[in-house]
């Protein structure tokens, strides 16, 4: 899978994003890392040009409730309905439903085990191969129930 790992907004904490990028690389995926402080538009452009299958968003600044849905919306507008969006960082449980509603399929909090990330990617591959909705604009109510 080609997976973009992105850091939207004014957030300088990239340890988590880098560890996730590394873990997905070790699970055999091609990971494109965007670097820090990208706008939603820049992230969508990267997903588009790199023809990524998935995009992982990392935010620890508290701006996820604005940035994540905005990226989902722009992806759909750009015709990337089939791209799977997931996220991670400091994201309170109470704020997750609204992110899922915007089209995200998984949110991983602190303490998530490495293998859970690649289990999630495998689950996405499985669903795609059986034609079940998993993209940001494909609807359906499937979301990954994460351990943290």
């Amino acid at each position, binding site marked *: 899978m*080609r997976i973009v790992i992105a850091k939207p907004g004014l957030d300088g904490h990239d340890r988590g994003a880098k560890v996730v990028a590394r873990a997905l*690389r*070790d699970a*055999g995926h*091609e990971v494109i890392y965007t670097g820090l402080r990208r706008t939603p538009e820049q992230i969508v452009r*990267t997903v*588009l*040009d790199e023809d990524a*299958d998935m995009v992982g968003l990392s935010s620890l600044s508290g701006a996820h409730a604005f940035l994540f849905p905005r990226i989902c919306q722009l992806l759909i507008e750009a015709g990337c309905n089939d791209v799977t969006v997931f996220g991670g960082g400091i994201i309170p449980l109470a704020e997750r439903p609204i992110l899922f509603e915007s089209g995200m399929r998984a949110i991983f909090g602190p303490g998530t085990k490495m293998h859970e990330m690649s289990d999630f990617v495998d689950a996405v591959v499985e669903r795609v191969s059986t034609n079940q909705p998993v993209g940001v604009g494909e609807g359906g109510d499937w979301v990954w129930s994460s351990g943290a």
Partner: protein
Amino acid sequence: MKVEIGSGLAGRERLPTTLFEQAISGNRRSLAKLLTAVENGEVSHDSLGISPREVDGSVIGVTGAPGVGKSCLIDRLLSTWTSNGLKIAVIAVDPSSPLTGGALLGDRVRMESADNNPNVFVRSFATRNQPGGMPNAVVLAADVMRHCDYDVVLIETVGAGQSEIRVVSVADRIVLVEAPLRGDEVQAEKAGVIELADMIVVNKSDLEGSDRAAANIISALEVASNPPPVLLASAKTSEGIEELADQLRTLPAKPGAELARARERLLTAWDSALLSRKDINEVLDSLTSSDNSAQEWVEKNLRW
């Protein structure tokens, strides 16, 4: 569950020829999807109905050791060229893990224009260690980009070792990026890609020692016939970037390097053919599980 790299979940629904038409008319998403098909080896010049491009200096390979500033220099070139009305595409190559097949592609991080300039298209390629498809995919990807009205295609390599020279050997021109403080003057005397380069850029000209590094390279190349131009530039301060951008547009191929280039291209094609053998996995297994050396296998199986 083993996930196939390049299984290309997205885009499986459209024909490459349709994508190509849409890409030519300026659709970025179609170009992106077509490049995925190119990377996966699903299309060829024939299936797209195009012939291999004439060498005209518009496809430029940028190589050099890690950390000399290839990506940053490319970013400055992108700004300069696009402000002159050109459209530029970049193929940024990073290595795949030989163990897992995974890759971390990070060249975009240093290319600001990659994400917001409409006249720039940056695509990351992983080397993928397998069926040797890499050089072929790069050649076809560059040709496709040229067909889609990109005036220049830059190919950026990982930058360590002989194999990266090979990938760059598919480009029309080769630019070697150097930097100061990378060793004594003997480094510049060493043979290698320096002899194949059509131009040498000493980056980080804002740092002390850059003049001397350039002087060392110039004096090392002086004794050879037809030395390539050596330019000082700084991606940090933009010093020398205008001149670099100008010269690259009309850079002549280095005379006398034809044989060496042809050899690199032959080796590229040879690697590719060898690694595309249907029995390549059995061959590799037999080499790891028996006492046969690779040398013996070659002598027994590849005689002609």
